[in-house]
């Protein structure tokens, strides 16, 4: 279970998070929605320790993430980055098996390669892409490789940062389905940030909306359409008029 209590983060004078409270139960798929620049990525990075919050606590299974031993702590996580963030100096299989080739989870090269190819197969890529470099792949394929890398070490918690951004609608649908299948199959806790409502409906068990540095609404995805919350209604229906100011 991931618990955030009163998390604050500012960059200079810009207050991004202003008291975020959120609980993600184990095995659930939580999707965080919100406009661009509302701090969704910062929130995710705070949990991973890539950004240090100014105030508040973040607990993973009751333990404070800032005091945990880093290597051990991070081995519970997998993350799919917005632009896939594949290492361009390494081949596809070396990217997927990155964690398996070094550090505490290190195993023999052949075995790591086998696992990488198996994970690539899981995300719908054949063994022929294993020896290509990331630059030789299309955007959709890179996302798949990123997904394979995120799940390679069987993490308990997976983060997805805008998994469908920049993909065509069909490829976005494929990635959404893959994410849903993999999360269910692995029994992992998932946390996704997106502003793609199709993605939300495909992936989420629960939805939380971040606006003005706080969680404005959270609840099961089924209740999202009848929430009565004006912020959420405006966002999910994509209306220009409403409590959220839109700059024209």
């Amino acid at each position: 279970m991931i618990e955030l209590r009163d998390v604050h983060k500012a960059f200079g004078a810009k207050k991004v998070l202003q008291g975020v409270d959120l609980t993600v139960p184990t095995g659930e798929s939580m999707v965080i929605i919100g406009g661009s620049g509302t701090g969704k990525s910062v929130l995710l990075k705070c949990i991973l320790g890539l950004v240090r919050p100014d105030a508040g606590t973040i607990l993973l299974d009751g333990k404070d993430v800032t005091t945990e031993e880093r290597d051990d702590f991070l081995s519970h996580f997998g993350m799919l980055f917005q632009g896939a963030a594949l290492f361009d100096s390494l081949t596809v299989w070396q990217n997927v098996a990155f964690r398996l080739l070094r550090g505490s989870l290190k195993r023999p090269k052949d075995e790591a390669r086998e696992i990488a190819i198996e994970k690539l197969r899981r995300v719908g890529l054949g063994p022929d892409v294993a020896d290509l470099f990331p630059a030789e792949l299309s955007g959709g394929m890179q996302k798949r490789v990123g997904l394979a890398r995120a799940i390679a070490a069987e993490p308990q918690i997976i983060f997805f940062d805008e998994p469908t951004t920049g993909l065509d609608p069909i490829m976005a649908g494929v990635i959404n389905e893959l994410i849903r299948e993999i999360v269910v199959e692995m029994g992992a806790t998932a946390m996704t940030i997106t502003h793609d409502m199709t993605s939300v409906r495909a992936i989420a068990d629960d939805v939380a909306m971040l606006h003005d540095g706080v969680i404005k609404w959270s609840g099961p995805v089924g209740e999202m359409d009848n929430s009565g919350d004006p912020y959420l209604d405006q966002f999910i229906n994509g209306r220009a008029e409403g409590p959220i100011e839109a700059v024209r």
Partner: protein
Amino acid sequence: MLLSPVAGLGRSTLALLAMIGRMGLFFAQTLAAVLRPPFYLREFGQALWAIGYNSLPVVGMTALFTGGALALQIYAGGSRFNAEEVVPSIVAIGMARELGPVLGGLMVAARVASSIAAEIGTMKVTEQIDALVTLSTDPMKYLTVPRVLAATISVPVLVAVGDSIGIFGGYVVGTGRLGFNPAAYLKNTADFLEMWDVTSGLIKGAVFGFLIALVGCYFGMNSGRGAQGVGRATKSAVVTASVLIFAANYLLTELFFAA
């Protein structure tokens, strides 16, 4: 209104001091990371190849032409007081003590500090650095340490090669254009060049190599967003590395040769 230039000066001074502080911290973090495992040998090998071996042509060409020009200049200068015969020894001493390390260092700074800053900067902008952290890999150990070690080891080797090629350049011009006897030229070079002339240059090379890679990594890791951010990081890396080479060269020369 009147005070705005003063305020601007104050702001840039503060920014410079902050940068020096951050670079100092980065330096300390790098040293700490060098000593702690894990060690990434594969990355070290690749850095050695990219920084050392691939810089050979540019350092060699620089040294060759510099040695040749040096011979011509010393001949022209020496002839003013009938001391043309100093050409071989001054070319050798000049290359080994000063021009080999400084010009070699500057060429490596142009080639390597820029490419390190651009590569790591792009990795930062495309979230690859964040990805490394989430994959339980310390970017300092994985990216900075191999490059800094490789540059510290390979630049002195490049300097040694550059010294030899520079002296050879002087020899070619001296014997071909200035009428020196080949055997006498070589004998003069060997007789007057001392071990310390060469060693001091190699030590300079190691310090320059360390600075080049450190500065490249620092600006890469602190790169701003987008193409402009990476561009600025690359430019700053080359400029800072070059200035630091000159400053370090003066300090080392003072330390080694001041009477």
